[in-house]
Each structure stands twice: as C-alpha cells, then as structure tokens.
C-alpha cells in the first residue's frame, strides 16, 4: 500500500490541459505541410519522383494527405524549397477532396454535421476495427486511453461491442480477409452511425496501395464522415479531429 502511495506521488498528475492550452510538438514532428505554390516546376517533379506514396500532384502543387505517410523525403530532397512540414497536428477533414492539400485545410469544426454534435457531443462511443494495418494506428489510438490524453474525460470511449457503439473507427487498408468482418461490424452498429477513417491505410491503402489483397479505401464500402490522415496519425491528430468534429 505504501508503495502505491509513494509511486502515486512520484508520478503526479500527467494529464495534458489540451485543448484549453496548446501543445507544442518537437520541431522534427511533421504535421500539416506548408507548400510553396510558386516553386520551380522541376523541383516539384523531383519531390514527386522521390515520394514513395505518389502523393504529390505536380500540376496542382498539392499533396494528397490521404496518401502521404509524412516521411519527409520531399522536404529533405529539396531542402524545403517546395514543402516544409509544420508542427500543426490538426489535420482531420470531413471530406476526401479536402485532403488534397495546398497547405491549408478547411476548419474541421465548421464542416461537421450539426446533428452529430447534437447527438454525440456529450457522449460518443466508438467501436475500433483494425482491418489489415500494421498496428501502429491501433497503438496510437489506444494511447488516447493513457493518463496523458485521458480521452474519457471528454465523454469519448472505445467500447467492446458494436451494439453499444455510435460508430466505427477503422484503421488499416481493409484486407480482403477482413472485409466481411468489417461489414458485419458496421451493420451491427445502430443508426445513425458515424464512420471514421483513421490513418493513410484506411483512406487510400497507405503504404500498401496497389496490392490486390486489399480494398484500399474505406469510402468504397461505407460513407465516411471523418478522415484522419497520418502514418499513423499522431494521437493529438485523432484527439483534435474527434473534439472538433463532435464537440
């Protein structure tokens, strides 16, 4: 008992005061890209050529954040001439098109569905479905339940049964072998329900795009309400998206 108390004192309270106070992530973290719209075309092509995800649209000078794994090669190869990554982790969007990013994203809070806020603003229960990913999205979603983030203080919880859930949070590129189970889970959630695509894989197949063993796009199965980009999304990206979309 004494040991528990001693440890409790040593650990203290570690819960972040986000969103009341901002969090600054370390400068190497790569969040929302800043894009130089007047960058030399040859340089843009060089960045596109090195991009492992083919996420750079040369003509439009945009980055598809739904494909991007934020590996930073484009920033590195051109010394930031075309792209530099900011530490802004707020990257959730309510539409796939909005992820084709010229350096800005629409304010998520203003694009969420009004009835969602009314229905789920005070209590949101989600069923997480891992569908063919690498487990880093799952791990960084799980982290939201640790004392630092303490997700349940916002009235948001991950629940065991789809019957108890208001929606599903899907990670992974949806392997063919997981498709049936995912659809069954979706159908088991009572309506009205929310569908969240967490991470590059669920949005576009991520690193596995082009594989015949995956569906590669959650939007091809169900209407998606919320897109959270990243490989994996930083826990704060997910938290920011959930709070802005539902609160």
């Amino acid at each position, binding site marked *: 008992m004494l040991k*528990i108390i001693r440890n409790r004192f040593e*650990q203290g309270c570690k819960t972040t005061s986000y969103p009341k106070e901002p969090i600054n992530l370390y400068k190497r973290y790569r969040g929302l890209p800043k894009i130089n719209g007047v960058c030399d075309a040859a340089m843009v092509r060089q960045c596109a050529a090195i991009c492992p995800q083919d996420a750079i649209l040369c003509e439009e000078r945009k980055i598809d954040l739904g494909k991007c794994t934020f590996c930073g090669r484009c920033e*590195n190869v051109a010394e930031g001439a075309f792209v530099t990554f900011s530490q802004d982790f707020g990257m959730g969007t309510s539409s796939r098109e909005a992820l084709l990013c010229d350096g800005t994203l629409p304010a998520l809070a203003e694009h969420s569905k009004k009835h969602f806020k009314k229905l789920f603003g005070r209590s949101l229960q989600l069923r997480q479905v891992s569908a063919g990913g690498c487990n880093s999205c799952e791990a960084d979603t799980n982290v939201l339940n640790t004392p630092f983030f303490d997700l349940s203080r916002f009235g948001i919880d991950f629940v065991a049964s789809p019957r108890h859930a208001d929606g599903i949070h899907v990670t992974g590129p949806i392997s063919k*072998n997981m498709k049936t*189970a995912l659809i069954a889970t979706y159908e088991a959630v009572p309506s009205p329900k929310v569908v969240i695509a967490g991470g590059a894989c669920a949005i576009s197949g*991520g690193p596995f795009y082009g*594989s015949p063993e995956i569906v590669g796009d959650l939007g091809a199965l169900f209407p998606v309400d919320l897109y959270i980009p990243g490989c994996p999304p930083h826990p704060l990206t997910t938290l920011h998206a959930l709070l802005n979309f539902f609160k």
Partner: protein
Amino acid sequence: MDKLLQIDNGQAVKRSILPSVPFARFAELLDDFVKNDGFIVQFFAFVEDGRNRLLAVMRNTQLYVLTTEVGESFASLTASSNEKFHMFEREIAEQYGITPVDHPWLKMVRYHANYRQVPDVFGNNYEEDIPGNYSYFQVEGESIHEVAVGPVHAGIIEPGHFRFQCAGEEVFSLEIQLGYQHRGIEKMLTQVAMKRLPILCEGIAGDTSIGHNLCCCQALEALAGISVDPGARIVRSIALELERLANHIGDLGALSGDVAFNPPAAYFGRLRGEFLNLLQVLCGNRFGKSLVLPGGISQIMGREQAKIIEDKLKELEPEISHVCDLLFSAHTVQARFENTGIVSKKMAEDLGLVGYSGRASGLEYDARVAFPTEAYGPLHANRNEMVNGDVYSRASVRREEIMHSMHLIHILLSRAGEICAKTTMAELTLEPDAFVVTVNEGWRGEVSHCLLTDKAGRIERYKVKDPSFHNWTGLAMSLRNQEISDFPLCNKSFNLSYCGFDL
C-alpha cells in the same frame, strides 16, 4: 557440416555458390542440424528457371544455407524430423502450392491463393472472403464446450480467430487462425519501385518498424555494396533499443491491467509514450518510421537530440524502476503471474521459440549477441535470471531487458558524435543473381529477411520472417490445461504480432 554453406549475417553471395543437394540428403542434413542444437531461421520455396526450389537458413552459433529442388510435393520434415518445420511447411504449401506429404497438420496459414496459380493444396475457394473456411479441431465429450473469439476483438487490437476447446474453465486445446491482416507484402516487395521498399517494410509490423526496416536496408546495402557511417549505425541501434523499451514497458502495463492492478497499468502506459516521443525526437515519427534508409539514416542525431534522450532517460530510469518494483512485489500480481502459461524448455526448443518468449524458457539466443549488426558488436548481453517459462518469467525478462536497453543507450550515446551524414533514398543497383539474409533482434525476437535477385538485379524473391511466426505456436501450447480466464494474461505475456505474421 559438409554441404552446408556458412554465411555471415548481411553478406551478399552469388546464387551459384548456394549448395544444392537432392531432397533426401537435404532432409537428412536438416534433420541432423535441428537435432544438434540447431534452429531454423528461414525455410521457404521459390521458383528458379521454372523449377520449384526450397531454401533453408539455419543457425547454431553461425548461419548456414542449403537448397534443394522439389517437384509438386516433398516428404514433410515436420513428420519425419521436428516440429520446428511445421509452420514453414504450411507456408510453403500455401505460397507455392507444393504439398509437404504426411504433414501432421496441413492447414492454411493466411488464406490466400498461391503464387504459381496451381490447384490449391487446401481446396479453398478464395472467391469467398473469409478465412475460417476450415473445420477446426474439436474435442468431443459430454462436458466439453467450445469458445470462439474474433476476428473482431473487444478492444483496440488486431484481428485473429481463437478457438478454445474447454471442459468447464479448463482449456484442452487452443487453435489460432490468423491471416485477417494479410496484405500481400512479400509479393509487393518484388513488384513495387525501390523507393517504396523501406516504407513497406516499416508497415510489416508497426511496432517493429525499426527491426523490419533494418533487415530490409541491411539487405539492400549488402546487395548494392554501399557502406554506412559509424555514426548512423549508432543511431539505428539507439532507435532499435527505444523501440524495444517502448514495447516492453507498454506490455508490462498491459499485463498489470490484465490482473486488475491499475496503478502500474496507468504509469507504464504513460511511460511507454515517453519512449515513442524520443523516437519522434530522432526522426519525427513516434514509431521511428522514415528514420532508416538504405545507406544510413534520414536525419542525423545532433547534440540537441542526444541531450534530450540522455536527459529523458535520467529522468525516467528511477520512475521505471520504482513502478517495476511496485508491480513485481505485489503478491496479488505474483499469484497470477507465477506458474501461469508454462512453456517448458524442451517445448520451447522443439517449437524454436525466439526472443523473450524463448529466453523466459531458458533459450539464451539473442541475435544482438549471436549475429551482431549495426553498433552491437562490442555490447554485452543481458542474461535473464528467471527461466521457468511462465508469465512471471516472460514479464521479468522484459523488466531486465528494459534496464539493460537503457544501459545500452547510455553506452551508445557516449559513442555518438562519430561521422554521420544524412541519407536520401536513392535508386540502387543491386548485384544480379545474388542472395542475402539479414537477421536482427527486434523487440519480440529474431526478425529476418531473405532476398534473391535475378539476372537483371531485380528482386525475384523477398522472404520476410517476423519472430511471431515461431512464437504463436508457443502461445497456443501455453494455454493447455490453463483456465480460459488466464488467456488474456498469457496472450499479453507473449504479445505477438498479427500483422507481422500475416504479412
């Protein structure tokens, strides 16, 4: 050891010097090898000039390679020799449609059509989406009942199907069917542009991003003949240790949660994040994705980053040791951990368990010491004390390795400052007609990649092995005659990868 070719970890050799023997001799040599303290690192099929071939990489104190040619079937080594071959042979049957005749448990591994478009060994129709198109092993009897769990589990975890045969609370048999995470990675690795390889390998198992990508990059470096700065090797080793720390600490927290002892679960959960944040300090990603590239690292570790890591370790070391003490000295925890989910040394040897799962049963093997890569050469090993093969042993190996890894990082940081330039991904020219095998000690154990290039220097066959490939069978065996309520605890003590297994 006639006929076996001794090969170094990460050494590219011409395919023409790989020894090939008739299958009967191949079976004899492998049988002899595994019965004399030898283990299988890789055992897979590939097609060469239209002929089916098998290739085995084995280890005792060194690595060896041997190949043979087979037709549409071969006599199962699982049947004639040892359990170590069992999962490999099932994989060969699934990937190449080659039947291991008399295999005692010939069952699909991941549920996908074979690469050669020949009739399926298991008679599956892959137009049907769901794995599980299979009659599970059943125990019959008046008081027997069956529990089926998954693929979707009650938590934020990966999918897999577990089938228990129980009498009351007691589990007679646990059958584990995976494959739900199958993304076709091995095939993709031979087809996609080179620039995608590191990112794909980081996605084999996200919690082992560094481990798998190191294997990939070391193999590409060997085949392209490029060298790596000593400073970069130090950073890669630090990253591998940070990955180990984050996962071990997270698992101790989860184990604590599984026995309903909440304080350490909460503390370890937060402490795990601190180590993920250190990986983010190194490279901008909490799982170390994007850090390792063929030829080095994408971002150098400057004084600033080294100091952040050093200071953080100093701050966390006493906290971790106190929370460990809290966990391991609680008698309620001891009562649940001790004598639960025992895997004997004999069984661990027979199954070829690796990593902490093997070490907890008394198999000392640690690839960092046996086949050192990167900056591991002069570093000392951790010798774990507890070797009872139960949950307590697997947990206490983690505790020791946490302390050991933090010590290694201190040593590595004191050597930092050696020459290191940052690398960008370049198109590499690989040696044609070559073979390479790489082995690293990921946090779960031995990670290994094998590459075979063709006449034009393209990757013809890419074989990935995650330590979970060996260890899932260990979990199934540990549940025999255990209470089903101990399953979460046993499962967490192994904490195996679904995606690393499923590929």
